[in-house]
């Protein structure tokens, strides 16, 4: 189980998380939605100890992540796969070596077993023939899939996906959605998915949480979110430029943006 309890995080004067609280139960896929810069990536970076909260606790399987000694933190990380927004592949290594990195670190498998696992992971993301290529030779979508393969090769208990479908064409996005669903349904992996793509959120999520003003504005099942009455959540999921308006006005982007900005600034829990 992953738990954020009343987490505060600021960078200089800028408050990013301001009392963020959320639970992710085993076997779930919780999708975190929210505006760009709302702090979604910051929230999941706390789970693997890449960031430490200013206040509050972040727990994974009852381990308080910020207070874990370094050795135990690395042991915990071995059970968590992390798919980065821009894949974060090691560009000096081949795709095969990228996917094998975590397995080699564990030191539990022979090289032939690692090669087998790498091939299996790349097969899972429909990229069986890229092992000997370098990241620079792949398209953005292929790199994202390799990022997923690198995470799933470890057979982790949890996977954190940071905008896995952003910037991809609809077909590749659907392939990645299917992959995330398969990971949960077939391998029982618990997932946290950050996305702006509501179609993907509805398809992948068992629950959806909206992060707004540093805290969870609403959390619920896909159906609950789809039928929400909260104006801020509605605006976001329907992709409207203003709280009240129907759609973004191409003719007058200035006022529409200002109104949207006002809407974001206001509103209570």
């Amino acid at each position, binding site marked *: 189980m992953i738990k954020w309890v009343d987490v505060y995080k600021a960078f200089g004067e800028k408050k990013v998380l301001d009392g963020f609280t959320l639970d992710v139960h085993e076997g779930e896929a919780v999708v975190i939605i929210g505006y760009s810069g709302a702090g979604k990536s910051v929230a999941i*970076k706390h789970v*693997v*100890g*890449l960031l430490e909260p200013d206040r509050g606790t972040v727990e994974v399987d009852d381990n308080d992540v910020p207070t874990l000694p*370094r050795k135990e933190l*690395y*042991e915990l*990380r*071995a059970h*968590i*796969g*992390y798919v*980065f*927004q*821009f894949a*974060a*592949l*090691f*560009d000096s290594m081949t795709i095969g070596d990228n996917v094998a*990195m*975590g397995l080699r*670190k*564990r030191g539990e498998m022979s090289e032939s077993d690692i090669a087998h696992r790498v091939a299996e992971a790349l097969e899972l993301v429909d990229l069986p023939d890229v092992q000997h290529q370098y990241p620079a030779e792949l398209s953005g979508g292929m790199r994202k899939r390799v990022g997923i393969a*690198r995470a799933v090769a*470890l057979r982790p208990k949890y996977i954190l996906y940071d905008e896995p479908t952003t910037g991809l064409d609809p077909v590749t996005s659907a392939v990645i959605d299917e992959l995330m669903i398969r990971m949960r349904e077939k391998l029982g992996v618990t997932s946290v998915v950050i996305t702006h793509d509501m179609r993907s959120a509805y398809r992948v999520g068992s629950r959806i949480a909206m992060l707004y003003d540093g805290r969870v504005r609403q959390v619920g099942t896909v159906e609950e979110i789809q039928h929400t009455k909260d104006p801020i959540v509605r605006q976001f999921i329907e992709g409207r430029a203003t709280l009240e308006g129907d759609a973004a006005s191409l003719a007058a982007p200035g006022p529409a943006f200002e109104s949207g900005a006002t809407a974001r600034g206001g509103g209570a829990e």
Partner: protein
Amino acid sequence: MNVIEATGRWVRFRVEEAGRAGRFLEEAALAFGSVRSWLPNATLQMRRLGVDSLPIGLLIAVFTGIVLALLASYSFTGAVPLYFVGTLVEKTITLELAPVLTGLALAGRVGANIAAELGTMRVTEQVDALETLAYDPDSYLVVPRVVAGTIMFPLIVGVAMIVGLGAGWLASIGLLHLSSDEFLKGARMFFSTFDVEYGLVKAGSFGFAVTLIGCYKGLRARGGAEGVGNAATQAVVYSAVMILVLDAFWAMTWLHGRS
């Protein structure tokens, strides 16, 4: 009030920076203990930072040797026997010019290379990715480079000493019409193994400083291409300054008072 505020802010920034650097040094020292993590990478880095830097070291040594021989001949103006050209070339090359000039050249090549590589890894989240795969960036990225620099700088400088001396020797024969025996007589006359030892230890300290500064600046890079560029520039400038500081440090603590 503004001056006091600005001074206070500057002092605070410097103290914080010193604290961060101290913490970085402590973490790198702790990571040195996990030999299995850094050893495989250290050999790769020895080739990249050391062997690949050899040509620039040798080029500097050749020209330094030639210039030193001619400079010595010009300075002596007949008042000092010409075989002292060998003495001056040997002393200056081994004690000072081979370590310092090679160190400064490598500060540019190696320092910038490390800062740009690690800086790019930092801003593209590759360092974060390493951490999530349970790798410690200090033992995987920092220690292999620092070990490689500390070992390879003295080796390059050692070769540069030999090549510089050889270049001075050939220049003395070809341009100053000094006999080979005369040059070698001068070179041997005041030779001490301390000269070589001193030059090599200095080079090791330069290698340690240049690689450590490169890693520190690279891993602290922020904000994309501009951040990486700044990190590389700062790594070169800080490394060059540190080489001169260390040069003075060794002269004051080890050379001073010896006869």
